[in-house]
């Protein structure tokens, strides 16, 4: 047993110290210094979509550091898992949150999924693109397929070397800036719904693709995407035709495992502690109020559990274990802890909690108010917590699955 990775730098070996120093120097040289401060000044969370962030991400990519562990032939840097952590820690320490598929330094969802399921030819084509910073958006959800994803209806009809795609996806975040769509489609409507799904990579510049903005209560835009007779080459299919569902289940567990490591909640707890120490109430620091003190301590415990859950997944992955249901556990915990942090934070801030980022008098730059809105999505986005709980019970403890009432897919 050892928990050395827990704390930045505290347990580095001489070799790791040297590498950390190298990473720091490289970041100093290559990062636009405004990147760390702008988000703070504007009272917004680290801006994942800003051009500056993306420019920095591309520099990391050129160095092979977007996927540090991948072999050089695929565009990685051939480093160790420990070195990946160091890069990850040092980037996070600058308050930079890279766009979703870059941010886990392991090729997001498409990278590891392709490593496992793509043909050698596909790996040669796609992995270097991912390493070089190609952006993917996940094309799963549809108007009638959310939590019950296998009900998806976007059709792919075979036509020579291509598929012709028709239908609609929604909640594809970041698709406006992305290069490719990681797309689930129905290739066979005449079999049970889990058995007629295929996984494709669609070029978002293809003709027939229309993207429309959807506005969310967090202020961030997400998108719906319409496919109107769009051609996608069959060679872009990952895995067998009609065999996309099994791959997707793995891809979803990869996604959940990486969701659980978001730094938002721990940072807000730190800010709240600082606020409670500095803010006077009835002539005493707010921190002296036993209810505030209890609340902050409880939140600190919950975010610490979050950190441990996410480290456990890293440990399992690095030692060759399948994190399976632990991704679901971590995802639930991140979602619900974030909501508790946001809500308790709002309570501690009192009247001022309602002030938005940028408003005069907004405490902690309005980040708690923004978070209170933003975290709403987390308990159902990326797989609802209810589904996740059933995954934990059935996979980890072997409970029987709920009997399915099978209904034919609408054509």
């Amino acid at each position, binding site marked *: *047993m*050892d*928990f*050395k*990775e*827990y704390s930045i730098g505290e347990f580095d070996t001489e070799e790791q110290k040297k590498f950390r120093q190298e990473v720091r120097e490289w970041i100093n040289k290559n990062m636009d210094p405004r990147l760390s401060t702008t988000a703070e000044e504007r009272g917004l969370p680290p801006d994942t979509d800003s051009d500056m962030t993306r420019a920095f991400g591309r520099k990391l990519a050129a160095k092979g550091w977007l996927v540090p562990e991948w072999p050089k032939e695929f565009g990685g840097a051939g480093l160790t898992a420990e070195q990946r952590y160091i890069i990850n820690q040092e980037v996070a320490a600058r308050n930079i949150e890279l766009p979703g598929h870059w941010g886990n330094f392991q090729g997001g969802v498409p990278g590891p999924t392709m490593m496992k399921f793509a043909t050698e030819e596909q790996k040669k084509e796609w992995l270097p693109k991912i390493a070089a910073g190609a952006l993917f958006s996940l094309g799963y959800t549809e108007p009638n397929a959310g939590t019950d994803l296998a009900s998806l209806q976007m059709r792919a009809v075979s036509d020579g070397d291509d598929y012709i795609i028709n239908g609609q996806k929604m909640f594809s975040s970041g698709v406006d800036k992305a290069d490719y769509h990681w797309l689930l489609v129905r290739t066979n409507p005449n079999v049970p719904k889990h058995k007629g799904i295929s996984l494709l990579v669609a070029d978002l510049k293809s003709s027939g693709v229309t993207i429309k903005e959807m506005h969310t209560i967090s202020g961030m835009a997400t998108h719906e995407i319409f496919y109107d007779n769009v051609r996608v080459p069959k060679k872009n299919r990952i895995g067998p035709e009609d065999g996309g569902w099994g791959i997707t289940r793995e891809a979803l567990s990869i996604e959940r495992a990486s969701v659980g490591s978001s730094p938002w909640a721990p940072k807000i707890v730190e800010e709240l*502690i600082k606020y409670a*120490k500095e803010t006077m109430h009835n002539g005493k620091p707010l*921190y002296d109020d*036993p209810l505030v*003190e*209890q609340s*902050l*301590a*409880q939140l*600190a*415990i919950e975010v*610490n*559990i979050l950190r*441990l*859950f996410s*480290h*456990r997944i*890293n*440990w399992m992955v*690095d*030692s060759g274990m399948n994190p399976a249901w632990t991704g679901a*556990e971590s995802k*639930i*915990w991140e979602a619900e802890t974030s909501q508790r942090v946001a809500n308790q934070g709002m309570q501690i801030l009192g009247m001022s909690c309602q002030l938005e980022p940028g408003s005069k008098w907004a405490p902690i730059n309005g980040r708690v108010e923004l978070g209170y809105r933003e975290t709403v999505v987390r308990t159902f986005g990326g797989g609802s917590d*209810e589904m*996740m*709980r*059933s995954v*934990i*019970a*059935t996979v*980890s*403890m*072997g*409970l*029987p*699955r*709920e*009997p399915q009432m099978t209904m034919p897919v609408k054509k």
Partner: protein
Amino acid sequence: MNFDFNDEQKMLQKGARDFFEKECPKALVRQMAADEKGNPPELWKKMAQLGWLGLIYPEQYGGGAGTMIDLVALEEEMGRACLPGAFFSTVLLGGLFILNAGSEEQKKDLLTKIGKGETILTLALTESTGSYEASAVETTAVAEKDDFVINGTKLYIPDAHIADYIICVARTKKGAKAEEGLTAFLVDRKSAGITCTLLKTIAGDKLCEVVFNKVKVSKKNIVGKLDQAWEPLEKTLQQVTVARCAEMVGGAQKVLEMSADHTKQRIVFDRPLGSFPVIQHYIANMVIDIDGSRFLTYEAAWRLSEGLSCAKEIAMAKAWTSEAYRRVTANGHEIYGGIGFTVESDMHLYFRRAKAAEVTLGDANYQRKVLAKELRK
């Protein structure tokens, strides 16, 4: 990073699980809850022979030189088995305090005897408030020639009624801070002036009221330094708290396994109970509660054995595990339904222990207060 036990610890874990399943059946647990003494002599002897009573003591005192993590592995199995008896009072509270504060002679004598199962020891710190803070100690000890004379009432003292010695923490000086001026005395339980009354408790733990009425103790029987008992006491409480958390984790894990089994066997509305999502979600909540408790405890144990700062981590572990174990047993009862409410079911054994463990060594509110103080620094 590694969240797992090493091979030796896994062997210890498996050995302990097999041993307790055979030697500590629930019939014995029930018998000991009703028993006046509460420490099964045969089991105690066998645990001594296996080296578990001295596991965490250094070799020169006949111990196994085990780490906190070894202890955690063993404690989880004890929690799983609902092990009754004097391990907590003797090996942990008493023995660890001797190890942390005692003279070479005391260590050699007492730790060796504890390891062999020949001595029962306990620590008398808490009083009427039930608080583990130094300010709660009102019992006094006044010097009189070669002796000290102790007066006061200690409460919630585990196994004092069967102990050979009670380590009594008394105020010997009024210091500027409550932590100053406390001294620990090794008192023969049969000394004149000691009255011990066994209390009836929810989990059958043998907690006692111990009244010290002009009890004379030789100055030679001071454990550690005069007026300076707090520092080794605090260290002892930290170690014992981590061990108690591990015991809770083990108990909670067993409740989870029992509950999951029950949901597979029990048929309701023509389906296994466990196929209903609402039941699956109870089970998932139990898994999450236990994993959180487990990793907080492991991290605290690891930091403790590495000699790193760990006040924060221990407070987190005890605050969280105290409440999580209770929630897990409440879920277990809901899943078991009526049958779990009967005394024949094992569920209530854990339910009772969870509440007792929650309030022992500082409940969640207390631990959060400790943590908040650390976070404020």
